[in-house]
């Protein structure tokens, strides 16, 4: 059968049409785009509506509340915990936001969610940044002047113990790198000091140096992320030209 008329052919064709439809906004806003935009929003909202029950309420709430039949339950046995019903009125308080008189009640569920979030910030702060602080504090003075840069270990042909000793040295180039790393972190951080009067010369020069160093960082970030954007476009083009045009329209494999 000509592949365009199979289910898979129709499915891929729909995908191609939708892709082209959304791309048309690159030319200008038009009816074709508007059609697919609303289709997109509708499907996404339908999916959300579905996941509210299927993913977010059925298992994590309803099943815990009323329990599950013993043959389906693992460990622990699926007894129901009826007290979970109290979450229903709590969640529904959010809907009071449209009420003119009782709209304040929507702040209760929001408050709980925010409270849980903010408590976690205190809990995770050090786990996130502690190691990074420690990782920034690297030696900035070499332990050896025998070589200015890291030697080529393969060429040295050392015994394992001597090799480990050689690797444990801090060479000048490493010390400089560590120093630059330190300077960048400190200067960038002092660029974000808001309450110090910039008349202080040290703060001022540190923060303007911080800005330049930031730009090196941003340039590197741009450089290393830009490739990914193109990858996704290439993937789309592969979808259109190979998966659709070549495999389905031309029926070649």
């Amino acid at each position, binding site marked *: 059968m000509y592949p365009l008329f199979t289910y898979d052919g129709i499915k891929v064709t729909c995908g191609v049409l939708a892709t082209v439809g959304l791309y048309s906004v690159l030319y200008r806003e038009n009816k074709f785009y508007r059609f697919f935009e609303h289709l997109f929003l509708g499907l996404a909202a*339908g999916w959300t509506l*579905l996941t509210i029950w299927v993913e977010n309420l059925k298992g994590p709430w309803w099943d815990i509340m009323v329990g599950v039949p013993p043959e389906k339950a693992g460990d622990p046995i699926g*007894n129901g915990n009826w007290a979970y019903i109290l979450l229903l009125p709590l969640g529904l308080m959010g809907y009071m936001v449209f009420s003119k008189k009782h709209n304040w009640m929507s702040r209760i569920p929001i408050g709980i969610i925010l409270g849980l979030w903010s408590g976690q910030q205190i809990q995770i702060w050090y786990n996130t940044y502690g190691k990074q602080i420690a990782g920034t504090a690297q030696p900035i003075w070499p332990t050896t002047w025998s070589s200015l840069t890291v030697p080529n270990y393969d060429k040295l042909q050392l015994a394992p113990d001597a090799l480990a000793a050689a690797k444990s040295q801090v060479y000048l180039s490493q010390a400089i790198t560590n120093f630059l790393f330190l300077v960048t972190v400190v200067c960038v951080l002092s660029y974000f000091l808001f309450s110090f009067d910039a008349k202080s010369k040290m703060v001022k020069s540190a923060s303007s140096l911080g800005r330049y160093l*930031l730009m090196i960082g941003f*340039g590197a970030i741009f*450089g290393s992320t830009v490739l990914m954007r*193109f990858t996704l476009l290439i993937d789309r083009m592969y979808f259109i030209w190979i998966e659709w045009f070549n495999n389905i329209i031309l029926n070649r494999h």
Partner: protein
Amino acid sequence: MNLFLQSKVPNFWAQPFNSQGIWMGVLGGLLVGILIFLGLMFMPAQFRRPVVAFCTFIGGAYWVLLYIFPAPIDLQKTEMPTGPVESIGKWLTDANPVVVSISGTVTAFMLGLGIFSLLSIHLKRISRRQKDWAYSVILLVSLVSMAFFGYADYISRQGPDGTKLDLQANWGFVNYGRDLLFDGLLQQMDAAMFSVIAFYILSAAYRAFRIRSIEATILLSTALLVILSLMGAVAFVWNDAVKNMANGNDFLMNFQLTEIAGWIRRTFETSSLRGIAFGVGIGALAMGLRIWLSLERTGGGA
């Protein structure tokens, strides 16, 4: 007794599936909930802020306490904690699934509000025959059909034969419907919109990346160097040239493109990101603290 564990032995809080007890409990709980709801509605206005502040504080206090009293070290399921510190730690640890499901469930209930907002805007537009109302019809139709096919597909996959539907040969109408709407359209549109960025990057870079100032020049040249180093072919040619020139000199080998770019990324990219991250992290901590203790009012008003 621990309230937070799903008990194996039925008790007042936990009743077997589909028993009279569980439905009585649910009904009773619902009544209590409605009473609380009504009570809050008719509560005098001066108590409103304290109530919200209290709820927020309790929520945050859980994680803060868990930080101060972490799970006891190497506590097995069959062992009892020793001492008050461990007991608190164990109690908090056991409460974890409950806390997780509270925030998850409350969030899930709120999701409905988003759908509500969408429906209200688009139904209004259709009923008033406002500009572009036909598109609102498209939106609503696709919303309903996605939810319908999605749910029907979900139902068909429950039960012991659910795995069968992993094979397309066993599909029914609803499975095809869901697959077309979700895989055929929604996912493809996701990918399409994501890839639009490539076009915008090109036009933004063309328009904005001009060597106007020192800062722009720094940014541009670093970006260029890193981009080139990530292009395997360019890096290979450059590195090869350096290898030939260096001719065994280890110092010159450091000027390979991948080495230079790697050094820049390790030394400046990581560190400037880290500098920003420290600041943002402290900002989030401060904000979290202010929210937790209700020190500021959202919206900045009185």
